[in-house]
C-alpha cells in the first residue's frame, strides 16, 4: 500500500525508535542512535542504548508509531549528561537514526564542545522600576548600589554556559535594549539616532 502524506510537513528525519530497535539483535542494547533534529549543531550528539522495554500498544492503526521505554546515555553537543536518561514520551517520533557500527568510533571519539559562555549573575532593572526602587530605598535609608535584578537561569539540561562567579566578568550581557548583535551585518545600514 502506498502511503500518501497530506498536510503540513515537519522537521523530523528518520524512523521511530520502536522500528529501529525492533529489528536489531538484543533490541539494540549497546548501539548508538542519533536524532535528526540534533544534527543542526556542529558538535556531535548521540544516545547509547543501555536498556530497552516495550510499552503497550495503544495505537488504533497499524501504521501509527508505537512507544518504547529506553534507558540511554545521552551526549548532547559533545557534552555527556551526568545522569542516565529514560526516554519514553518522544520515542514515537520518526526522528531516530541508527549509527552504523563502523561509524561509532567517530561519534565516541569526538571531543568538540561548544564554546562555554559565562552569563551575568545580575543586571539592571528597567529604567522606571529602577527609579522607583531607588526612591523607595532612599526613603528607607538603604544602600542604592544594591538595586540589581538577579537573573534566573534554568537549572535543567546540558548547558553550553555557566553563571559567572563573584567578581568574574561575563562574556555575554543581558539587559534592556538591543545589546551586542550576534550578526552585525543585519544592522549595518541602519542609521541610529543618538538619543544622548
Amino acid at each position: 500500500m502506498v502511503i500518501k502524506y497530506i498536510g503540513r510537513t515537519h522537521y523530523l528525519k528518520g524512523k521511530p525508535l520502536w522500528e529501529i530497535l525492533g529489528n536489531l539483535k538484543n533490541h539494540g542494547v549497546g548501539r548508538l542512535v542519533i536524532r535528526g533534529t540534533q544534527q543542526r549543531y556542529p558538535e556531535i550528539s548521540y544516545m547509547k542504548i543501555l536498556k530497552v522495554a516495550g510499552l503497550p500498544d495503544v495505537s488504533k492503526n497499524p501504521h501509527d508509531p508505537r512507544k518504547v521505554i529506553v534507558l540511554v546515555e545521552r551526549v548532547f553537543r559533545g557534552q555527556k549528561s551526568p545522569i542516565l536518561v529514560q526516554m519514553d514520551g518522544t520515542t514515537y517520533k520518526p526522528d531516530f537514526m541508527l549509527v552504523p557500527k563502523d561509524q561509532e568510533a567517530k561519534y565516541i571519539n569526538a571531543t568538540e564542545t561548544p564554546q562555554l559562555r559565562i552569563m551575568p549573575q545580575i543586571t539592571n532593572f528597567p529604567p522606571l522600576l529602577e527609579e522607583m526602587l531607588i526612591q523607595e530605598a532612599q526613603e528607607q535609608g538603604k544602600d542604592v548600589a544594591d538595586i540589581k535584578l538577579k537573573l534566573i537561569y534554568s537549572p535543567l539540561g546540558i548547558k553550553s554556559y555557566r553563571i559567572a562567579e563573584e567578581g568574574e566578568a561575563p562574556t555575554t550581557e543581558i539587559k534592556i535594549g538591543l545589546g551586542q548583535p550576534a550578526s552585525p551585518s543585519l544592522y549595518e545600514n541602519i542609521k541610529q539616532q543618538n538619543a544622548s
Partner: protein
Amino acid sequence: MIRLSVQFGVNVLTVRNLNAYDHIISNGPNIQCVRWKRKPIWLPPAKSKLFRVPKRKVIPTEESIELKRLHNNYRTYMKSLMTYFIETEKERELCFDKLVVEKNAQKDFEICSQINDKWNKKVAMMREKRLTQEREDRRKEILEKVQAKKERDSKMLEKIDEEIRKAKEEAKTFITPENVDKAIVNALENITEHNVAIDLKGNFYKTKSKVESSNKL
C-alpha cells in the same frame, strides 16, 4: 473596506456575531477596518482554505542566530523580572500573616499602653497638686467662716445683752397691779397736753392760741 453582511451557512449565533460588526464597518465610505475584516477566530477554516498547506518559512542563518539571541535575552530578562515581582509579593504577604499581624498588634498595644501610662502619671501628678491646693483652700475657707460666725455670735450676744439691760432698766417704770393706783393718780395729776404747735425748726409752742380758745368757748 465596506463589508456586506454575508451569510456563511453556519449557525445563527456566529452569523449574528459577524453582523454585529457591520455597523462599525459600514460606518462610512472612507473607513478601512483592519481588525474585523477577517473571519472571527472561532469559525472553522474557509472551504477554499481547508486543504491549503502553507509553505514552511525559511529564515536565513544570520537572522535566526540574531533572533534566537534576542528571544533568549528577552525571556531570561522577563523570567527574572517576574520572579522578582513574585518574591517581593511573597515578602509583602508575609507581613499580613496572622501570627505576624498579631505580634505587630501586641507590639503596638505595648507601645500605646506605655504612652498611656506616661500620660496617666502626668495627669495624676497634676490632679494631686490640684487636690492639695483645693483642700488647703477649703480649710482656709472653713476657718474663715468659723471665725466670722464666732464674731457674728459675739456681736449678737452683745446686742441681746444690751437689749436685756435696757429692758431691765425699763422694767422699773412698768405699771404693775401694785402700783396701778399710783400711776392712775399720777396720770390724773399730770395731764400731758399733746396738742402743741411746731414750727419748721422743731420748736414747740405750748401756749394755746387765742383763736382756738375762743372757738371752744
